[in-house]
């Protein structure tokens, strides 16, 4: 009905297909756009906020960094290897479409409990898919997270983040300009893969018939992706493109309407000129195919021969498929016949926007549970170190190339990956975090906590957190309870970002993550990029030297509610998580950056999953050296706390830097034993439990 009013006539089938995709949740954000406006998006470093392919920040020395995280949940649930691989391919294209060379990938993965065969299959194949694409295109994977919770059993989450580097002057836009300029499609040929992926997969929940959706999953070709990256960067280096857009969800339909709409122009597209992988494709199929590894560019006519030659050098098809017009209409023709004629503004601007209904879920409680008595601290520490949610991720990360690009200063396994930005001395630290189980107990606090944790992880390396990208994974927003979770989570995220002065420069919303009407945990995943002035001062999470003092910096509130201890030792998830102390959080990050700058820290590791005892054990295992620390609150989880180690000579300077931030001496590094309060474990035992858990699950040698 709405479309009839906008067009003043009935739409034909072609036009209807285009509208249905662009107005899908995946492309049009119809349930989330109004809420997303709440997130702060500006700041002195922001060069490009939300609305382009990726956000871009200024990191100094004339360098800029592009960042974005995106979901590929439903394709991965249907076909885990290709789903994950094309998720990586898609996020890479978003980054180099901004003119940036991709330098780092991170992946955030969630599955059902790994005692199920199918969940292990999904986990193993998703990791292979992420690795396959990233390794083949030569972009280092420097971090991420993996969680296993029953809530993700029928709807795994695969979020991939990419970060790229560009000269601050070279920022590229997707805005189509200049009537008479040419619309050029280059890269792979167009096939029937991924037809309707944005609406069939990404904007519906799962039910019993999900296997039948496999043909809607795209197939990736990382070799083509690699050529596309190198060719695109060469085209931009030679200043040959007026604008650039990747082809992702909804293919040409989305790319052309976004380019035309942001440039305030029209586009005439001749679909019979699009190079095809298979004959006899219908015009609407060509328009909405999600075939991977394709880019669209606007090129001034006199530059076209050079563009064509450069593409040929990289063995890529490049074809002029249309031109920019002044009339504000997206007109598609096929064999000389007009097959669709749509005012561009109606595709992007008139997408229906809904206020979501918000009904507070009955499961949420106002009060935390009373404190619990820890009966067997040593046994609990053993259980936690071997828990699939905490155990070493080495089995995952060593399937990824962590080093290509010669930039990796801190490899995966710590709090954040650190990549130096040659030729400057600078580096960036990157972390990707979320905790759906905790967020399920209090969406507002959980989302704020995700921001705090990602920023704190970056701060642990000595970097100053600079910008946020987010991926909001939720259930069906048309139910009031999910609407409530979404609204609360965005509010929590906004409050934390405001307090920490972190702009949200890009993001992605993935809704309808549910199975038979049961939604996943509300799972906001937060990526943070921070800046280190000198790569050589980066701090790792591993203890270094016997005799170093161990201290706890910050004193945010913690609780057993929602913790890994509560899940694996008590066997429940209940209560309410504490509210992050944002002032403490901010002071903590500043302290860490200042202490690292002065090279006062031997290590820094944030207290997160598993609480203080697990934090101490991880730093000990990482450094292959024991620790003796006094602590009462061994397993409580919350924000605002970091375990640091330092030379005793640096204590006075650290206390001075800390000012009013609590800095409490816990003990010393050394020996062959991990002693965290009453929990005692030999370093060898702890290492064996921690390192062997995932390989054992997956049936691999350690």
């Amino acid at each position, binding site marked *: 009905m709405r479309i009839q009013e906008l067009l003043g006539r009935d739409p034909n089938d072609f036009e209807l297909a285009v509208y249905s995709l662009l107005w899908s949740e995946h492309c049009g954000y119809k349930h989330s756009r109004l809420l997303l406006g709440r997130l702060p998006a500006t700041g002195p470093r922001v060069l490009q906020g939300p609305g382009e392919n990726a956000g871009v920040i200024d990191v100094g020395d004339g360098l800029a960094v592009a960042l974005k995280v995106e979901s590929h949940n439903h394709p991965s649930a249907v076909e885990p290897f290709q789903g994950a691989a094309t998720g990586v391919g898609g996020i890479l294209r978003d980054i180099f479409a901004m003119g940036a060379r991709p330098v780092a990938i991170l992946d955030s993965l969630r599955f059902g409990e790994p005692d199920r065969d199918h969940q292990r299959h999904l986990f193993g194949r998703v990791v292979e898919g992420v690795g396959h694409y990233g390794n083949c295109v030569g972009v280092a994977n420097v971090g991420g997270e993996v969680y296993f919770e029953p809530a993700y059993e029928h709807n795994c989450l695969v979020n991939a983040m990419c970060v790229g580097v560009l000269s601050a002057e070279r920022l590229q836009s997707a805005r189509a300009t200049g009537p008479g300029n040419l619309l050029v499609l280059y890269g792979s040929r167009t096939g029937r893969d991924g037809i309707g992926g944005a609406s069939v997969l990404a904007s519906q929940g799962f039910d019993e018939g999900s296997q039948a959706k496999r043909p809607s999953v795209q197939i990736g070709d990382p070799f083509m992706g690699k050529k596309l990256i190198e060719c695109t960067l060469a085209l931009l280096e030679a200043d040959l493109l007026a604008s650039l857009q990747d082809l992702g969800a909804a293919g040409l339909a989305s790319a052309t309407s976004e380019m035309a709409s942001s440039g305030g122009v029209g586009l005439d597209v001749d679909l019979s000129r699009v190079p095809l992988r298979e004959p006899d494709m219908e015009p609407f199929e060509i328009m909405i195919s999600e075939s991977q590894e394709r880019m669209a560019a606007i090129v001034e006519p006199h530059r076209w021969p050079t563009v064509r030659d450069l593409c040929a050098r990289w063995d890529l098809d490049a074809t002029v498929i249309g031109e920019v017009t002044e009339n504000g209409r997206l007109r598609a023709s096929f064999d000389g016949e007009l097959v669709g004629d749509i005012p561009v503004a109606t595709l992007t601007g008139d997408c229906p926007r809904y206020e979501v209904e918000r009904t507070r879920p009955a499961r949420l409680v106002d009060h935390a549970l009373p404190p619990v008595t820890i009966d067997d601290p040593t046994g609990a520490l053993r259980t936690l170190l071997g828990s699939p949610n905490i155990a070493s991720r080495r089995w995952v990360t060593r*399937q990824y190339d962590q*080093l290509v690009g010669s930039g990796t200063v801190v490899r995966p396994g710590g709090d954040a990956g650190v990549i130096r930005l040659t030729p400057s001395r600078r580096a960036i630290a990157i972390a990707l975090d979320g905790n759906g189980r905790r967020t399920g107990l209090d969406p507002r606090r959980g989302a704020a906590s995700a921001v705090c944790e990602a920023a704190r992880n970056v701060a642990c390396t000595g970097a100053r957190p600079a910008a946020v990208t987010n991926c909001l994974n939720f259930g069906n927003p048309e139910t009031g309870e999910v609407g409530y979770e979404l609204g609360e989570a965005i509010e929590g995220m906004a409050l934390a970002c405001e307090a920490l002065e972190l702009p949200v420069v890009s993001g992605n919303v993935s809704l309808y993550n549910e199975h038979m009407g049961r939604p996943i945990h509300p799972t906001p995943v937060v990526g943070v990029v921070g800046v280190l002035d000198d790569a050589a001062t980066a701090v790792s999470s591993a203890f270094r030297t016997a005799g170093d003092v161990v201290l706890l910096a910050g004193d945010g509130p913690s609780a057993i509610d929602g913790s890994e201890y509560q899940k694996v030792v008590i066997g429940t998830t209940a209560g309410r998580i504490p509210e992050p102390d944002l002032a403490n959080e901010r002071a903590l990050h500043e302290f860490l950056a200042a202490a690292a700058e002065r090279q006062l820290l031997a290590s820094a590791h944030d207290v997160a999953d598993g609480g203080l005892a697990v934090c101490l054990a991880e730093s000990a295992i990482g450094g292959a050296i024991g620790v003796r620390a006094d602590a009462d609150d061994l397993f409580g989880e919350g924000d605002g706390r970091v375990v640091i180690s330092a030379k005793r000579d640096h204590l006075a300077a650290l206390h001075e830097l800390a000012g009013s931030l609590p800095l409490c001496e816990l003990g010393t590094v050394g020996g062959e034993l991990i002693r965290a309060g009453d929990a005692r474990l030999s370093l060898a035992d702890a290492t064996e439990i921690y390192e062997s858990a995932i390989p054992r699950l997956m049936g691999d040698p350690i």
Partner: protein
Amino acid sequence: MTSVGVVVFPGSCDDRDALRAVELMGAEPIELWHADADLRGADAVIIPGGFSYGDYLRCGAISALSPVMSAVREHAAGGGPVLGICNGFQVLTEAGLLPGVLRPNASLRFRCHDVDLVVERASPWLPDTQPGDVLRIPMKHHDGCYFAPPPVIGELEAHGQVLLRYRSNPNGSVNAIACVTNRDGNVAGLMPHPEHAVESLIGSTDGRVLLGGLLGLSLATIRFHDAPKAPA
């Protein structure tokens, strides 16, 4: 100044790293394009890591037939030094410049981590090292299991063509062989990445040994070709 050509195939990933490492070693890096049958005057050649031509068909199989490889063959036949790293090692075996082949890892998984390589013998490729010394260099590959039939392995061992062995075999390579040369000793290949081990900030500097060897060999070749022929 010694110049080192680094071949760029479509799908090469560690080409930029190799060019950068050559520069850090004080030599002149030269980018060579796969479609050009010309080494642009380079004194030595590195075939870098990556997935050349997507490693479709078989790792390194298509690259071995590319125009630049004829020039590399000619260079090697004249005694010029060539170093193949990772995918480059695979390309050199496919091109017949090195014996053996690289099979999928015994684990059938991609593996990325540091490995300890034990120096097997004194060689111009390994300046300032003694047999038994250990070099710590990262590896990252899916198809790095070195294989050749027993008679070929016997010959390699007998002729001193094995330069490095894994201390702990990460991929199932026969005899834990990590680095081999051709019979003449001017072409070498290994799966681990010396070009990723040239700065302590990003791990280790042990890769400088092999790159130093490459530069040393090219100086030796230049001297050999420039010197008046000595009477036999």
